[in-house]
C-alpha cells in the first residue's frame, strides 16, 4: 500500500476492483465504512461476483474476469475525452511531457520489437529521446506528437464504452457511471483510493492490471495524497515483510537484485546501476545502490567481505534465467531435475496451480522437508485419501521429513502489514510438544551443514564457512539480534564526509537509519529499507503511542513504517508546484519557504525546493511514468490480452492467445483448454470465515464454513439441470473435482462480444487435512502459467465444464 489502512477514512471515492475487502480484509474494510459514514465517501465495486463488498457499495458494475485493463483503459480514455485530468499534477509529476523515440509503436495488439519465437520484445525503442545535454527531452506544452501524453491518448482511443462492453461484458451505462464517478476525482480536492488484491495479481497480465489503475490514479492526481493511492491489500500477515526482505529468487533484501551470470563481476553489476538523473537536479535515490549493496554484503559475510574481493560479490549465486520462480522449479521437478525441496509454512499441494502436476513433481523428489505448525496436505501428499488424494502411496519414493514449528502466539518478532507498518509482537504461550522456532531450526540446519563442510570440505564452502553468525547463542539467534542486524551498524567509526573531525556514529553502534550507510565497507545493514527499525533509540517497531494529531490517520508514533517511518509514499505529491497542499483540509506536508514539514515524514529531501525536485525520487526522472520505458516486459502501456483460457477470442487481435510474452512451458500448453470443450469462465476466491488452508484446522472456523462448494448462476443451473445443494462435477483440461452447488443471484451471465459467458466461482479453503470436511479447491483445475513480469499464476481466470454428479468417495 502507498497509504495506510487508517488513511482510507480520508477518501472521497473508494474503488474495490480486483479484491473483496469486506470479506478478505474485514477489519481494514472498516475504514471504508468510516469514510462513507463520516466523509460521505462513495464505494464502487467492479467484480464478476456480487460480493459482500458489493452489497454495501454505492455502485456495482459486473466485469468478466481477466478484462480489467480494457475497463480501466476505457476510464482513462473517458477522462482524457472529457477533460477530467488533474493537469498541473499530470504535467509536472508524470512523464506525460517526455518525448518517445521514433521507433516505438503499437499495432495489431503488439508493441514494436516482438519476436514470436522468443515470446519476447526487443525493447530498445521503448524509451525517451535523450538530448545533447544527456537529459530526456520534454515538451511541457504537451503539443509534440511523440510526447507520452499524445501516445497514451492514441493508445487508449480504441477502448470506447462500446468496446469495453464487448470485451468486459459490463453494460455500457454501468461502465459510464463508474467512469464518471472516477473522473470526478480529477479535482484537486477529491481523492480516490484503489483497494486491490489477488483479483488483479493472479492473471497473466497481473502486473499491468495494477499499472493501469496506477496510471489512472496519476492523471487524476491521486497518488501521494490522503485518501488516495494504490493500495495492495496483500494476503498473509507478513507477505509484505517477506517481499521486503527479498525471499524471492531474483532479489536481495530491500529490492536489490541478485546478479545474473551476465554480470560477470562487481564492476559490471554496478555499471547498470548508476541511476543517473534523467532530468536536471533530480534526486534519483537509487544512486545510493552501492551503499545498500555493500552494507548487505557486510551483514552477510562480515570481515570476509572486503574491498579487495569486491565485498564477496562472487559468494552470491548468479542467475542464468530471469528467476527460479515456483512455476519453473516445479517444472524442473517434473522433469526430474530437482532432488530436495523445503516448504517452510507453505502448502503447495493446495496453493499451486495444476495440482496433478504438483503431486507428480513432489513424487519425483528424493526428499521433502516441511516446516509448519500444522499437518499440511503437502507433508501428506503421499497419503491416499480416496477421491480427495488419489495417489499410489507405495510408488512414491520421496522421503518426507516433517518438522513441527511454533506459531505466531509462541514467538517474538516483527511483521509488516500491507501499509508497511512493521509491528513487533511477543510470545504468549509454550509451543506444543517439541515444536521449535523457525530461527532455531534454520540455525540448526546451518550449523550442522557448516560443521560438515568444516570437517569434510566440499563444493565451494567459503560462503557457508564465512557466513556471519556471531549470535550470543548461535544455536538460536534471537529476534532482537536479527532486527538489529537488519537495521545496521557502523563497523568502524563514521565521520562526517564534509568534516572528518565530526564523529557521526561510533564503531559498533546502531545506525540511526539508512542515510548513514556507506559504500566502503564501514557499515552493515541486512535490509536497507528497514533501517531505523531498531536503532540506538531502541525498538521502534514496539512503539505504542496511538496519538494522531488532527486525526490525519498517520499515527506516526505507533510502531515503525518503512522507509524512515513514512506513512504515505510519494507524499511530496500531495502539494502543488509551490509546495502548497492541493487540498488544505487534507494537508500531509507543506513547503514553508525553506523546508518541508507536516504530519508525515516528507518523501523528499526536507530542503529540496518544490519547483526543482520532483516527487518521485526513486525514479531517475523525478516524475512517475505513464510510459514505462522498457521496465515492463509486456509493454510500456497496458494493452488488453485475454487470459490463456478465454471464453471469447481477443477481439483486438484473435490470433493472440493470452499475454504474448508470458512464459509457457510446452508441457503446459498441451493442457490449456478451449471454449468449445470448456465453455465456462471459472475463478477462485476466499470466504470471510476462512484463511487459506489454515483455518480448516480450527474447529470453530470449520464449523462456520464446513464444506466445499462451487457457486453458479440460476441461469447456468437451469441450463445444466443443477440443483441448489446437489453434487456437481467441475473439470478443466487439467483435473476434475466434485462439489456441492450453490446456486445464487450473486453471479449473473455476462454478454461478451455477443455471447453469454457463465462464471463459475470456486472458493479455495478445503483439502484433506484438518477439522473441516474433506474437499477440493480450485487448484486441481487452474492453469500452470504466470504473469509476464513476475510469474504469479493465472488463478483467477480459466475454463471449466460442469455437470450434475454423485457424491465423491472417501469422505
Amino acid at each position: 500500500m502507498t497509504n495506510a489502512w487508517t488513511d482510507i477514512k480520508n477518501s472521497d471515492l473508494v474503488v474495490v476492483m480486483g479484491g473483496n475487502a469486506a470479506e478478505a480484509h474485514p477489519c481494514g474494510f472498516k475504514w471504508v465504512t468510516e469514510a462513507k459514514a463520516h466523509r460521505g465517501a462513495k464505494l464502487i465495486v467492479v467484480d464478476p461476483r456480487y460480493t459482500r463488498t458489493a452489497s454495501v457499495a454505492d455502485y456495482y458494475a459486473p466485469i468478466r474476469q481477466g478484462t480489467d485493463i480494457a475497463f480501466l483503459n476505457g476510464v482513462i480514455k473517458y477522462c482524457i475525452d472529457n477533460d477530467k485530468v488533474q493537469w498541473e499534477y499530470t504535467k509536472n509529476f508524470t512523464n506525460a511531457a517526455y518525448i518517445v523515440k521514433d521507433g516505438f509503436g503499437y499495432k495489431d495488439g503488439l508493441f514494436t520489437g516482438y519476436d514470436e519465437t522468443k515470446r519476447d520484445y526487443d525493447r530498445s525503442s521503448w524509451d525517451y529521446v535523450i538530448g545533447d545535454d544527456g537529459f530526456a527531452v520534454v515538451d511541457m506544452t504537451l503539443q509534440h506528437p511523440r510526447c507520452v501524453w499524445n501516445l497514451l491518448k492514441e493508445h487508449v482511443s480504441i477502448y470506447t464504452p462500446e468496446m469495453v462492453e464487448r470485451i468486459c461484458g459490463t453494460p455500457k451505462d454501468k461502465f459510464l457511471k463508474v467512469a464518471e464517478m472516477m473522473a470526478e476525482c480529477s479535482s484537486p480536492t477529491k481523492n480516490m483510493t484503489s483497494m486491490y488484491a489477488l483479483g488483479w495479481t493472479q492473471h497473466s497480465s497481473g502486473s499491468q492490471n495494477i499499472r493501469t489503475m496506477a496510471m489512472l490514479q496519476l492523471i487524476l492526481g491521486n497518488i501521494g495524497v490522503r485518501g488516495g493511492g494504490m493500495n495492495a491489500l496483500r494476503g498473509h500477515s507478513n507477505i509484505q515483510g517477506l517481499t521486503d526482505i527479498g525471499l524471492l529468487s531474483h532479489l536481495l533484501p530491500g529490492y536489490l537484485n541478485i546478479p545474473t551470470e551476465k554480470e560477470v563481476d562487481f564492476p559490471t553489476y554496478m555499471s547498470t546501476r548508476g541511476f543517473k538523473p534523467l532530468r536536471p537536479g533530480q534526486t534519483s535515490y537509487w544512486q545510493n545502490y552501492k551503499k545498500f549493496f555493500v552494507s548487505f554484503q557486510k551483514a552477510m559475510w562480515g570481515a570476509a567481505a572486503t574491498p579487495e574481493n569486491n565485498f564477496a560479490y562472487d559468494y552470491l549465486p548468479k542467475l542464468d534465467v530471469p528467476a527460479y520462480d515456483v512455476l519453473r522449479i516445479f517444472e524442473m521437478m517434473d522433469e526430474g531435475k530437482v532432488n530436495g525441496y523445503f516448504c517452510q509454512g507453505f502448502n503447495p499441494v493446495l496453493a499451486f496451480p495444476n495440482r496433478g502436476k504438483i503431486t507428480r513433481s513432489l513424487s519425483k523428489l528424493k526428499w521433502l522437508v516441511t516446516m509448519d505448525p500444522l499437518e499440511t496436505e503437502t507433508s501428506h501428499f503421499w497419503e491416499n485419501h480416496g477421491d480427495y488424494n488419489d495417489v499410489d502411496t507405495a510408488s512414491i519414493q520421496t522421503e518426507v521429513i516433517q518438522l513441527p514449528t511454533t506459531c505466531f502466539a509462541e514467538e517474538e518478532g516483527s511483521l509488516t502489514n500491507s501499509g508497511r507498518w512493521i509491528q513487533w509482537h511477543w510470545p504468549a504461550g509454550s509451543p506444543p510438544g517439541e515444536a521449535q522456532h523457525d530461527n532455531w531450526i534454520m540455525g540448526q540446519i546451518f550449523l550442522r551443514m557448516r560443521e560438515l563442510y568444516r570437517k569434510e570440505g566440499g563444493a565451494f564452502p567459503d560462503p557457508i564457512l564465512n557466513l556471519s553468525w556471531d549470535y550470543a547463542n548461535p544455536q538460536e539467534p534471537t529476534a532482537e539480534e536479527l532486527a538489529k542486524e537488519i537495521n545496521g551498524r557502523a563497523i568502524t567509526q563514521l565521520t562526517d564526509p564534509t568534516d572528518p573531525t565530526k564523529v557521526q556514529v561510533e564503531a559498533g553502534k546502531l545506525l540511526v537509519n539508512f542515510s548513514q550507510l556507506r559504500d566502503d565497507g564501514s557499515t552493515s545493514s541486512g535490509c536497507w529499507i528497514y533501517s531505523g527499525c531498531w536503532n540506538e533509540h531502541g525498538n521502534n517497531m514496539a512503539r505504542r503511542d496511538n496519538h494522531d494529531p488532527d486525526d490525519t490517520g498517520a499515527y506516526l508514533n505507533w510502531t515503525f513504517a518503512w522507509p524512515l517511518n513514512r506513512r504515505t509514499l510519494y507524499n511530496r505529491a500531495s502539494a502543488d508546484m509551490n509546495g502548497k497542499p492541493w487540498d488544505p483540509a487534507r494537508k500531509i506536508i507543506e513547503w514553508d519557504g525553506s523546508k518541508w514539514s507536516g504530519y508525515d515524514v516528507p518523501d523528499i529531501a526536507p530542503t529540496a525546493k518544490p519547483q526543482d525536485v520532483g516527487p518521485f525520487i526513486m525514479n531517475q526522472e523525478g516524475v512517475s511514468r505513464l510510459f514505462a520505458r522498457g521496465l515492463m516486459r509486456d509493454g510500456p502501456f497496458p494493452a488488453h490480452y485475454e487470459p490463456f483460457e478465454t471464453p471469447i477470442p481477443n477481439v483486438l487481435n484473435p490470433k493472440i492467445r493470452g499475454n504474448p510474452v508470458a512464459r509457457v512451458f510446452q508441457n503446459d500448453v498441451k493442457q490449456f483448454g478451449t471454449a468449445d470443450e470448456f465453455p465456462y469462465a471459472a475463478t477462485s476466491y476466499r470466504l470471510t470465515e476462512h484463511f487459506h488452508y489454515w483455518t480448516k484446522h480450527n474447529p470453530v472456523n470449520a464449523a462456520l464454513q464446513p464444506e466445499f462448494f462451487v457457486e453458479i448462476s440460476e441461469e447456468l443451473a437451469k441450463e445444466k439441470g443443477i440443483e441448489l445443494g446437489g453434487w456437481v462435477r467441475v473439470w478443466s483440461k487439467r483435473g476434475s473435482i466434485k462439489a456441492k452447488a450453490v446456486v445464487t443471484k450473486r453471479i449473473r451471465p455476462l454478454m461478451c462480444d455477443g455471447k453469454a459467458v457463465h462464471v463459475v466461482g470456486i472458493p479455495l479453503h478445503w483439502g484433506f487435512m484438518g477439522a473441516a470436511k474433506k474437499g477440493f479447491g480450485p487448484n486441481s483445475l487452474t492453469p500452470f502459467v504466470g504473469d509476464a513480469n513476475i510469474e504469479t499464476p493465472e488463478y483467477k481466470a480459466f475454463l471449466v465444464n460442469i455437470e450434475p454428479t454423485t457424491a465423491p468417495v472417501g469422505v
Partner: protein
Amino acid sequence: MNMELSRRSFLKVAGAGVAGTTLGSMGFGDAEAAVAAHVRPFKLATTTETRNTCTYCSVACGILIYSKGDVRKGETAVITHIEGDADHPTNRGTLCPKGAALKDFVHAPTRLKYPMIRKAGTDKFERASWDQALDRIARLMKDDRDANFIAKNEKGVPVNRWTTVGFLAASATSNETAYATYKVVRSAGIVAFDNQARV
C-alpha cells in the same frame, strides 16, 4: 493516550485492596465497582497479558493474548483467551471471524508436536528426534550440494548456483526469521528461493 499502562496492570492496581475507591473515583457505580473488583481481576489478573498481532491477513489487527503462566519468565504458559486490542489504531479492538477464533487455531488438534519422517514408499510417518531429523537434513543437503553445485558456468564465470534443491519460504514468519532464512539459503547458493508473494 499512551497505552504503556496495560489493562492487566490497571486491574492489578484496581484489585489491590483499593478497588472500591479507585474505581469509584473513575466514575464506576459502587455495585459495578464491587463486581468489577473481584470478577475482572479473577478472570484476567491471574493471567499474563501479551501483545501480538493476528497471524492471518495483512490488516494485522492488534490482539491481546491471555495465558496461564508467563513464557517470557521461562514458565510454561497455556493460552486461555485472545481478544482484539482496543488501543490498536487499525482495528480498535475488533476482530473478524478468523481473528476472533485465533485461540482455537493455537490449540488446533492438528498442531504438530514432534519431528516425523516418512521413509520412501512407506505409508506412515514415524516419530524422530530433532537430532535425527536435523542431521539427516544436513547430510542430504551437503551431499546434494557437493554433487550438483555449479561453481562456474561454461565461460568460467563464478556463478555459485545450486539448482537441485529449492526452498519455499513462509508468509507468516517474522521479518527476523525471514532474514535468518535468507542468510542460510543464499549462502548455500540456492536459487529456487521463493515465497507466497509470487502466488
